[in-house]
């Protein structure tokens, strides 16, 4: 068939002056601006666009919208490849490259179609049973073959070059869906003065009106409303935008697709935008979708919903066939029949109802449309394309064949109740329209249009108008909104609410293996019967057993039919059966769109020290430490971390080094009750700490286990300068605020984070004092003036400096704090002053190793499962003074002597290394189970010339000197080691008191 052969000569909303070249599986085709991929393919006569999921049956488009189960394509190539794109939704753009899926080597000749022969094997429960049942072993064998054969498009591993954006919007009235109801609602709310956000998943406003002839009566109404909406300053319209889900607090997540604009990521243009909308009120005017009918071989290409055929004809100027049969159980399908009749060779209506409205019969006669009442289609001829149908009278007479190349079906309409269901409201069955409608609306939510189960145009406009008035009033806008624009009088098929007679299966379909309910997941009537026989009859079980509705279309066309058939099998009412739970997203969303710009360096907020730029400029290799970027090592000391940190440590132990400790949490504690506050907080006392002195403190949590530690300095009677661990800073700050605000509001104390205010610099090593004497000439930093744990506040060149003598490394050491803007200049001042002493910067790796040699606890040991005693800090506690956690720290099981507690571990073997996380066993133990403890921190000690570690070992230092085994089963390693004191270096502290 030649390209464009199904295109009708005139009409439609396509622009024939603007052709669009595209390709399908390498075949070059042309459509027009305004086409979807689906309409362009149908125009080109492409009937088979995919193979079904399980049986590889040839499939064509069924609908013209987001509900289409079959027409899935992979668009684009490389990192831009998008699998499972719906051809009915994709806007045709120049150069679009589409590839069909789930078919090899091609959709027309598919090797996998042999699966049809195995249909009995693959029927309902196949996946469920092979996963869950005793045949698991078999599944493991077959899996690789099945996965290759049954599958949708493949995800790519290439980085996605496109940009995605997220944003927040606020509105008084959010109108979801710009059909006649949504347009009316938005207009009246906008006229009333409310801020209105109108969203429409289509590129054009109008909803079902877009399927009316462009020269028809409704078009001028649509154009007038759109123009007025565009003119209102506080009405914002988002096209190509779908509501993915409704969440708490009237929050709606929108997805805007801009694929058709070919956005350039280099220019910052987003391919898709996810918008979080906070709406005061929400008008749901999401419309309804047409249900297929269930009869044997109803999945053949060329079997489509009647409304889709009409849309292709009127909107896209595509006649999907020349000889159409329209099968219906309601009035709405007559619209398709009447619009088709003048444009194609022959139209026959097969109506399962006995009585047909006289007006319809009259119009049919005038258009030459044959109508057969009380008749059903009970079979389809043709495999890759409809060639005819079997027509059987309802009263059971013999059927006959009739030729046709298009079968339009209408089983009634299913309102899109998804959004109200997201909010937790169960849909309700409305018998007169044979449809589930929202069971209610949350406060501030209103329904309008076909969603309410009222399908005529007049009712859509009226309910939309009403919803708009109420929503605006809810937001305080009661300004009179004038009259609704007059609508053209309704067509006969439109005015009487579609007079439906629900029919769920036709023509022996119950016995047929090829009457499909869910096209995408290949679920047949037979599968539902099996589910019923096996007891999987509740809707949620049915879904999981048969995989019904679990495809990318989430069963938009199939769910209601399946539920009705199951209800019939069970002999209960459909209303009683209920529906499965509708969950977001309403349409598939790219993970990239949900991630937005939170990728790469924008993935999460990063904190940088005031000295960051200096580090980068001076050979530092940075490493992530929580939210921070910290210098890991400096290249002056070596090209790899293994070499560099040893050299940096040696410099600190033998001369002097400086490091950036700005990342420590710093908290300004002020107030007349600051001393009492800290006394309650820390296990040790701070109230009697003299002004000008610092003290190491440990905090427990309420449970009596370790929370955080740090050094706190008393700057004045009523002011302390607290430091916390880098990792614990945010937690500690919130905890302090909790205590001050809720537990102890009687204390007059303020806590303020000053982490960002102060740059922190540690100067450590035997020559540290000499460096300070050079850097701060005239400042007495002798042992008498500034003893260990002493503090001085000075101004250097008008810059305030807090100088605290304390040591993490075990060396003579100081921490200097200066206001952050001065950090770099002061660091440089210290460096140049320290040059003659050989001072060099050291990084995090050296910092951590220095403290392990000294046995100072840090992150890995500050474990909330541990107690003070476990860490050998029991003597710090002042139990006569109440402190947080005191009571529960006394729990008996936290105080048994055999608890794992802190030990040092030295490696006894020269070759192998110790590893963090290694499991500890006594030398005589069987190497099994959880052992007696584990290694928390490990380093090669250049000072001692061996691997050393800190760890927790049952019974702790009772086992001093005993030989143990450090096992690392993952690598099959067992290393001999010995329990030592955790303080490997200078146990008397002579260095730091020097």
């Amino acid at each position, binding site marked *: 068939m030649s390209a464009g052969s199904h295109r009708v000569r005139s009409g439609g909303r396509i622009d024939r002056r603007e052709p669009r070249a595209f390709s399908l599986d390498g075949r070059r085709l042309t459509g027009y601006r305004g086409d979807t991929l689906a309409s362009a393919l149908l125009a080109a006569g492409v009937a088979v666009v995919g193979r079904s999921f399980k049986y590889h049956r040839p499939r064509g488009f069924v609908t013209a919208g987001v509900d289409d189960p079959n027409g899935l394509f992979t668009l684009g190539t490389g990192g831009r490849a998008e699998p499972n794109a719906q051809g009915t939704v994709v806007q045709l753009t120049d150069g679009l490259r589409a590839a069909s899926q789930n078919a090899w080597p091609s959709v027309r000749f598919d090797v996998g179609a042999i699966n049809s022969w195995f249909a009995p094997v693959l029927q309902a429960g196949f996946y469920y049973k092979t996963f869950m049942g005793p045949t698991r072993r078999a599944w493991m064998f077959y899996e690789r073959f099945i996965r290759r054969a049954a599958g949708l498009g493949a995800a790519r591993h290439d980085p996605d070059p496109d940009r995605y954006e997220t944003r927040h919007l606020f509105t008084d009235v959010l109108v979801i869906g710009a059909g006649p109801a949504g347009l009316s609602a938005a207009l009246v709310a906008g006229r009333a003065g409310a801020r209105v956000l109108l969203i429409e998943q289509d590129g054009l406003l109008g909803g079902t009106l877009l399927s009316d002839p462009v020269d028809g009566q409704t078009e001028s109404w649509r154009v007038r409303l759109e123009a007025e909406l565009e003119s209102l300053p506080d009405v914002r319209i988002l096209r190509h935008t779908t509501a993915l889900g409704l969440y708490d607090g009237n929050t709606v997540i929108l997805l805007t697709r801009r694929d058709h604009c070919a956005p350039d990521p280099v220019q910052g243009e987003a391919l898709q935008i996810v918008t979080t909308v906070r709406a005061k009120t929400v008008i749901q005017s999401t419309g309804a979708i047409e249900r297929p009918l269930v009869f044997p071989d109803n999945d053949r290409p060329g079997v489509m919903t009647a409304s889709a055929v009409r849309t292709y004809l009127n909107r896209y100027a595509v006649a999907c066939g020349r000889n159409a049969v329209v099968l219906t159980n309601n009035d709405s399908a007559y619209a398709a029949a009447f619009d088709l009749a003048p444009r194609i060779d022959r139209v026959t209506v097969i109506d399962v109802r006995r009585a047909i409205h006289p007006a319809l019969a009259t119009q049919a006669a005038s258009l030459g449309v044959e109508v057969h009442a009380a008749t059903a289609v009970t079979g389809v001829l043709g495999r890759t394309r409809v060639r005819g149908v079997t027509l059987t009278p309802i009263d059971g007479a013999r059927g006959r064949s009739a030729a046709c190349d298009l079968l339009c079906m209408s089983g009634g309409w299913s309102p899109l109740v998804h959004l109200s269901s997201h909010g937790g409201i169960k849909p309700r069955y409305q018998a007169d329209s044979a449809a589930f409608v929202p069971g209610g609306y949350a406060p501030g939510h209103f329904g309008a249009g076909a969603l309410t189960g009222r399908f005529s145009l007049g009712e859509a406009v009226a309910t939309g108008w009403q919803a708009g008035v109420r929503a605006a009033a809810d937001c305080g806008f009661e300004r009179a909104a004038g009259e609704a624009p007059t609508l053209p009088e309704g067509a006969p098929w439109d005015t009487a609410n579609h007079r439906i007679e629900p029919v769920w299966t036709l023509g022996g379909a119950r016995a047929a293996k090829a009457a499909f309910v869910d096209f995408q997941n290949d679920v047949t009537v037979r599968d539902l019967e099996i589910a019923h026989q096996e007891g999987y009859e509740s809707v949620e079980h049915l879904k999981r057993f048969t995989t019904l509705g679990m495809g990318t279309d989430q069963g938009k066309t199939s769910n209601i039919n399946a539920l009705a058939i199951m209800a019939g099998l069970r002999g209960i009412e459909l209303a009683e059966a209920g529906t499965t739970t509708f969950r977001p997203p309403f349409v598939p969303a790219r993970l990239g769109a949900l991630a937005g710009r939170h990728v790469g360096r924008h993935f999460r907020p*990063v904190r940088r020290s005031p000295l960051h730029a200096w580090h980068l400029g001076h050979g530092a290799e940075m490493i992530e430490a929580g939210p921070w970027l910290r210098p890991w090592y400096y290249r002056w000391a070596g090209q790899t971390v293994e070499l560099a940190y040893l050299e940096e440590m040696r410099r600190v132990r033998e001369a002097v080094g400086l490091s950036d400790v700005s990342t420590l949490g710093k908290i300004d504690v002020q107030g007349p009750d600051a001393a009492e506050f800290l006394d309650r907080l820390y296990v040790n006392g701070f109230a009697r700490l003299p002004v000008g002195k610092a003290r190491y403190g440990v905090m427990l949590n309420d449970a009596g286990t370790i929370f955080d530690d740090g050094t706190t300095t008393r700057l004045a009677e009523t002011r302390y300068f607290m430091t916390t661990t880098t990792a614990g800073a945010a937690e500690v700050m919130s905890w302090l605020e909790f205590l001050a605000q809720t537990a102890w509001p009687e204390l007059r104390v303020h806590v303020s984070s000053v982490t960002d205010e102060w740059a922190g610099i540690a100067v450590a090593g035997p020559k540290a004092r000499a460096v300070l004497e050079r850097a701060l000439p005239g400042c007495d930093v002798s042992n008498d003036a500034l003893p260990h744990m002493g503090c001085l506040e000075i101004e*250097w060149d008008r810059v305030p400096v807090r100088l605290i003598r304390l040591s993490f490394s075990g060396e003579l050491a100081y921490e200097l704090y200066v206001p952050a803007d001065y950090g770099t200049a002061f660091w440089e001042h210290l460096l140049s002053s320290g040059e003659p002493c050989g001072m060099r910067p050291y990084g995090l790796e050296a910092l951590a190793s220095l403290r392990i040699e000294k046995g100072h606890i840090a992150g890995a040991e500050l474990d909330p499962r541990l107690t003070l005693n476990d860490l050998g800090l029991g003597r710090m506690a002042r139990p006569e003074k109440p402190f947080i956690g005191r009571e529960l720290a006394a729990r008996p099981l936290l105080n048994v002597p055999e608890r794992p507690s802190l030990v040092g571990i030295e490696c006894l073997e020269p070759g192998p290394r110790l590893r963090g996380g290694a499991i500890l066993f006594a030398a005589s133990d069987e190497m099994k189970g959880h052992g007696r403890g584990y290694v928390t921190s490990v380093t090669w000690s250049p000072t001692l010339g061996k691997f050393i570690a800190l760890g927790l070992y049952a019974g702790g230092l009772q086992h001093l000197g005993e030989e143990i085994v450090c096992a690392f089963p993952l690598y099959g390693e067992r290393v001999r080691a010995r329990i030592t004191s955790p303080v490997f270096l200078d146990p008397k502290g002579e260095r730091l008191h020097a």
Partner: protein
Amino acid sequence: MLERRSALESLAPPTGKGEGRPLVIGEVRGFALLQAAAFVGTVAALERAVRSALGVDLPKRIDAPRRANGICVFKTGPEQFLLVGPQDAQVASTEHAGLESSSHPAPLLAGDARLRRVGPEPVRPAGATEFWADTLREVVPSAMGSLTSLSHGRTRLFLEGAAAREVLSTGIAVDLHPEVFRCDAYALTGLEDTPVLLHRTDSQRYELYVLRTYAGWVWEWLTDAALPFGYEVVKKSHASLIVGPNVRA
């Protein structure tokens, strides 16, 4: 004197003058920040103290700042306020009515004229070098409340231009509609999980006070958000930017 360096020094070199562009982004330099907080029963006393020392009132709600004499006051908690004022360098060259330096120079230490001893038990607490802040210190005893300098702990950014609102709304979950977030309104909120104070200083101009250590990340994030609109980077000093009827700048 040691050089002050912005957290953005290596990230935000000026690219133009920003005239007529849809978006101008930059950093405001040359201001001082002081946090003043009262206890539950001492807000009125703190307000009197601030008024007497600086001639400015404290705002009652977290909605719009109060300002006078070159000081702008944001309320940031039930009894907590953030005072934004000039740095000393600008004070020296600017006449301020009603403000006189009354801070005592700290005693010189022997040996180097640049070194002064200020603590412990400070003659004046280290941490603030602005005399308007010191003026306040003298009238706020510890029983009335606390003062904490945050001049270095916050980086102050601005966005100006027609696209400013849209750029901010990509990361800030506050309704920035001009009728809702009016001129001079401010909000304490989050920008992509970092806490910020957002202040609308003019119809198309917003300022952000961000934690200094997050400033680099926020800068990268904002300029990326601004990419589709096009932008220029400019630098501005505080003195040229104080807005409001009582300002002498």
